[in-house]
């Protein structure tokens, strides 16, 4: 227990001791965190000098990540497709409750696309629609997605969904439509404009977002001090989404 407390203290320290709660403080939070995602000029392409990543402290998520999932739903508008059955609904992100079979130790964490450095979904896609941007964000280029769903077969995290019906009135910044596969894209539209992904904003005290390639970024510092484990590390995919407290 003392170990856990120790790293919680360290985590708080890396967050810079920002106070929480209310609108006023969230404005402060934004200005502090704005340094995590430097605004890129709109006409410049993304660079491979950067690799975006996320560190989620499972123990600090009071709701197991439910508010992150809600924020994602709101941002991208998935989860309420009118005709799809429950098992056909898209889920870009979900909270998973894990209970160890022997020890019965239990925790809940949010699971979405892990933005692998070696993504199996990109390897298998016949057209190259499933792609990794230069800055490490894995996403679907829906313009050339033929809907074969091979990437869904290949993903070890079950991070991808297929849209089973025609949709209207999508979010203008997050196109999603019939017959294509979709998944978490780390809110590319926000990151490109220097904003944080929606889910990170929804859990500012438990999640750090930033550049994994920059040794001085908050996320790199935090990972250096506290570690950051991967789900299914045995697959050697070198994920960009890391967890504390698994």
């Amino acid at each position, binding site marked *: 227990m003392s170990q856990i407390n120790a790293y919680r203290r360290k985590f708080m320290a890396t967050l810079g001791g920002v106070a929480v*709660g*209310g*609108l006023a403080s*969230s*404005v402060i939070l*934004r200005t502090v965190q704005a340094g995590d995602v430097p605004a*890129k000029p*709109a*006409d*410049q*392409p*993304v660079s491979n000098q950067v690799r975006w990543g996320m560190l989620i402290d499972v123990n600090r998520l009071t*709701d197991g990540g*439910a*508010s992150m999932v*809600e*924020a994602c739903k*709101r941002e991208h508008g998935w989860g309420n497709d009118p005709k799809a059955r429950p098992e056909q609904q898209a889920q870009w992100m979900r909270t998973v409750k894990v209970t160890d079979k022997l020890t019965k130790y239990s925790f809940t964490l949010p699971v979405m696309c892990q933005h692998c450095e070696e993504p199996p979904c990109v390897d298998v896609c016949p057209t190259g629609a499933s*792609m990794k*941007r*230069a*800055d490490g964000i894995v*996403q679907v*280029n*829906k*313009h050339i997605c033929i809907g074969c769903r091979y990437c869904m077969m290949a993903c070890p995290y079950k991070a991808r969904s297929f849209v089973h019906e*025609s*949709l*209207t*009135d*999508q*979010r*203008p*910044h997050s*196109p*999603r*439509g*019939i*017959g*294509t596969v979709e998944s978490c894209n780390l809110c*590319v*539209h926000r990151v*490109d*404009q220097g*904003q944080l992904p929606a889910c990170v*904003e*929804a859990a500012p005290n438990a999640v750090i977002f930033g550049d994994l390639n920059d040794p001085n970024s908050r996320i790199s510092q935090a990972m250096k001090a506290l570690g950051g484990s991967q789900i299914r590390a045995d697959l050697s995919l070198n994920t960009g989404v890391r967890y504390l407290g698994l």
Partner: protein
Amino acid sequence: MPLLSHIKSLLGLVLLATLLVGCDAGVPEPNLAPAKAKAAQCVEPTADMRKNHMVYLDVHRDKTVIEGIRTNKHSLNECINCHVVPTREDGSAVHYTDEKKDHFCASCHTYVGVKLDCFQCHADRPQIVENINYQHKLSSNTYHLSAQSVQPDMNDLLWLSQSQTQGATQ
């Protein structure tokens, strides 16, 4: 070759039927009013746009998705924001699939019979609930795109505070 003759006669029948139907229906009148309304303010000359809008969109879409270049000039979202009115006077939503064909893109695409599949994924009208200032004003009476990127900060903050109060109540 009895099989061949069967096929021939069948083909003939189908051809005749399509011809007859085609003649009967006539050419429907296009509704170009929405398209013409804002032609003068477009990011490219009208004649160029008429001919090449799909090329501009195609080039821009790859730049955006693959390279993350998010300029406004040839962005489909901005076309929609400027050219499509979200609702009719009676309050009903304007969609490209509507029978009335008063959606900016549909008015012409239906007439020339070219399939539009942008809007299978993209929103086909401005989402006013999300962003009240969806059109960028240059001055008090011109609605056009500024060279600068969008700054939806106020909205965002509003949204953030909402999510926090929600988190508190849970």
